[in-house]
């Protein structure tokens, strides 16, 4: 999903910077409040950030014969919302752009939007909808993280198709980029969803009080989850 350095012409790279900026600013504001008012959640924040670090460094093969990587942003988005996940994504993308020539400084805005904001927004919404509908918690987390991963790559395809409609127009270009990104990503998204669901289980077991305080799960649900897997 990394758009490489120099691969977004003006005005697109500026546009994506402008689109991402308000989310990041709000994310930093939320992060500040979290640090001041809910210090006990900081280890969880560290875990969410560390997850993006680990998962986005693993380039996995897929059945299309090419390699891509999961994003790991779903966990942070479910726990802290898409804006804070955006800040976590930004940190990782800067690391990769500076030290690995993976992605780029000029394409940072577009990459932050797809991996840090658009994907996490999907995770956040799917999680909220799932818990409200009373669906199985782990299945909800799985769906949220997997769809966030997949949607990140769909957004990258859209970004590239907008900048390079070519001769086939936006839709044709989108299909071409989606064939490279989104199709490769399907099995990786499933793996990512499964792993994040498993991590969520351990958080439920070890630190349920944080989930209650962040208003993510009611106490009754946590009680039930702990009993079924006690």
């Amino acid at each position, binding site marked *: 999903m990394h758009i490489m*350095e120099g691969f977004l012409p003006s005005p697109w790279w500026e546009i994506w910077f402008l689109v991402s900026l308000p989310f990041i600013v709000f994310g930093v504001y939320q992060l500040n409040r979290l640090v001041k008012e809910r210090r006990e959640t900081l280890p969880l924040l560290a875990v969410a950030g*560390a997850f993006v670090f680990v998962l986005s460094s693993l380039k996995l093969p897929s059945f299309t014969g090419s390699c891509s990587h999961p994003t790991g942003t779903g966990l942070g988005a479910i726990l802290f919302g898409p804006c804070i996940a955006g800040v976590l994504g930004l940190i990782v993308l800067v690391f990769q752009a500076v030290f690995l020539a993976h992605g780029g400084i000029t394409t940072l805005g577009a990459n932050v939007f797809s991996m840090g904001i658009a994907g996490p927004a999907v995770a956040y919404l799917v999680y909220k909808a799932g818990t409200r509908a009373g669906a199985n918690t782990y299945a909800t987390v799985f769906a949220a993280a997997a769809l966030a991963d997949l949607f990140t790559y769909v957004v990258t395809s859209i970004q590239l198709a907008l900048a390079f409609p070519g001769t086939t127009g936006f839709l044709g270009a989108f299909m071409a980029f989606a064939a490279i990104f989104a199709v490769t990503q399907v099995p990786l998204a499933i793996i990512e969803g499964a792993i994040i669901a498993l991590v969520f289980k351990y958080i439920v077991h070890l630190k349920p009080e944080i989930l209650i305080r962040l208003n993510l799960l009611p106490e009754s649900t946590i009680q039930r989850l702990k009993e079924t897997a006690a």
Partner: protein
Amino acid sequence: MKYGLEIAVITLIIVFAGIFLFQDAAGENSWGGADGEAAELIEATGYEPWIEPFWEPPSGEIESLLFALQAAIGAVIIGYVFGYWQASRKNT
């Protein structure tokens, strides 16, 4: 089922890994990165990137070193926090 979710996840990973016993990518992609493929598609239209990365890892080995470092930093933090929680739960 105490370990139901664990069993499901491990099965999924084994199935995922098992696919690659039967699949070979001798074709044009040969396990290259999807990012690079997209870049090739763009370059095929005659587009030239207007700016180069200001620093690139000098070799593939150094690149994998940095990727491993990135994963290690994350893994240390995850292990530390979960270990801390596990121990403090046992002590109370």
